């Protein structure tokens, strides 16, 4: 019962936010090119030349593609680091160094290397959200009680058994905390890519509308970018629920 009550509060807060925004535009004399009202923003959906569907599709593809590529590569690398100690002592410090490079600043390079289109944007999203996934998953894989390992080694558990029965499932809460951080970063990465060089996508659309000072269309684009991010985050929460929360594990 109280869960439903909490959902009620959450929905209420979202509705209130939009209502305050609408009210603010009504009671102030701000011109709509500074702060358009929510209703004005929604009205932009009716403009066929904006081609919303194409832009949403392009951005969503860049975000989800880059994100899931990062999850696959990140988890694989983290596992390799645990299995091959030499790799851990060599490549891990290198990764930490590379992580210090502002990924956003590398975006122009990717455009040079990969050209226009969705793929470079996907790669930028991948680059920016891959690090937290590697680092948290690796951390989760090595955070294990030494006595538990002693216990299973006393009956000659092999490496694969230790990995599949203890290390991997034990790392899931860490993986999900990394995935939540990464979801936010993936959205930012894809949009930056679209800012720099793109012919489609909501980031590209935002800049085009800025030139026309069409603020309400920009607002609507922002809303869609947010919704794509929320969808991704929601998917991660759903997976977390299936794999962790449902089993009563506290994260």
């Amino acid at each position, binding site marked *: 019962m109280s869960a439903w009550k909490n959902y009620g509060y959450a929905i209420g807060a979202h509705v209130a936010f939009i209502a305050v925004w609408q009210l603010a535009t009504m009671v102030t004399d701000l011109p709509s090119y500074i702060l358009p009202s929510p209703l004005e923003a929604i009205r932009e959906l009716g403009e066929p030349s904006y081609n919303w569907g194409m832009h949403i599709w392009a951005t969503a593809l860049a975000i989800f593609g880059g994100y899931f590529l990062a999850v696959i590569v990140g988890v694989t690398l983290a596992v390799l680091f645990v299995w091959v100690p030499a790799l851990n002592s060599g490549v891990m410090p290198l990764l930490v160094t590379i992580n210090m490079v502002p990924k956003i600043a590398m975006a122009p390079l990717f455009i040079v290397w990969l050209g226009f289109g969705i793929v470079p944007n996907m790669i930028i999203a991948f680059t920016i959200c891959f690090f937290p996934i590697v680092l948290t998953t690796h951390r989760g894989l090595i955070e294990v009680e030494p006595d538990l390992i*002693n216990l299973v080694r006393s009956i000659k558990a092999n490496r694969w058994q230790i990995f599949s*029965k203890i290390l991997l499932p034990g790392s899931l809460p860490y993986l999900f905390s990394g995935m939540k951080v990464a979801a936010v970063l993936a959205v930012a990465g894809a949009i930056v890519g679209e800012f720099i060089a793109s012919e489609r996508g909501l980031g590209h659309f935002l800049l085009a509308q800025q030139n026309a000072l069409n603020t309400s269309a920009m607002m609507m684009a922002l809303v869609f970018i947010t919704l794509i991010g929320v969808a991704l985050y929601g998917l991660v929460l759903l997976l977390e629920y299936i794999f962790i929360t449902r089993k*009563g594990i506290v994260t």
Partner: protein
Amino acid sequence: MSTGTSTGAHPFVRLEGVRKTYAVGKEEFLAVSDVTIDIHDGELVSIVGPSGCGKSTILCILAELHEATEGKVEIGSPDSPFTPGRDIGMVFQKALLLKWRTIVDNVLLPAEILGLPKKASRERARDLLEMVGIADFADAYPQQLSGGMQQRASIARALIHDPKLILMDEPFGALDALTRERMNLELLRIWKESRKTILFVTHGIQEAVFLGSQVAVMTASPARMADHFDIELPEPRTLDVKTTEKFGEYTRRIYSLLGMQ
């Protein structure tokens, strides 16, 4: 392997002059020394001593997790042969249950690792949970159980593959005093029912005397076994035993061995 016909006198575990050192840089660090003790099949032996006396090291040597630097380690007797890597059950201070597995699935972990038949193991797990008194929680997750109940589950896990030697490293050290007393009684009952050889490491002098048919006393710096002796108290052991003269004598003897008197 050893001499002639089997008699009940052949110990199940024989440790003779066992010593373990670690190299820390150029320094040599003594983990444990002078460990000499015979443990008979089906005996519950307590090892008591302060932190750093090498109690846990002895368990690790018996579990073949560490190798003794010197001395003789023999497990198994003609009557009761021992299979290394198979006949060991371990219980630690922390229950160390996997939080994504139900209690019964946690108990089954060693059976899975050893590749024992699934159906029979599952039935045995249910029986063991019955024996340790948490049958109703078989399908619960560990974090839904109290510390004492979690420890009961970890005892069931140590028994699932029917090992001959159970090594317990301060299993009740993290429990509150009352739960600990109750678990002591429970352990005696479980030990009698399962007829296992148990090595019980503890900080608690009273606990060591109350549980053990033999007590080994360890000292720190240098880490060594100072003495070991039989505990002759009325069986079955009940809480009344603790108020007897003899119980007091044994505990005093251990205190003085530890230099506390």
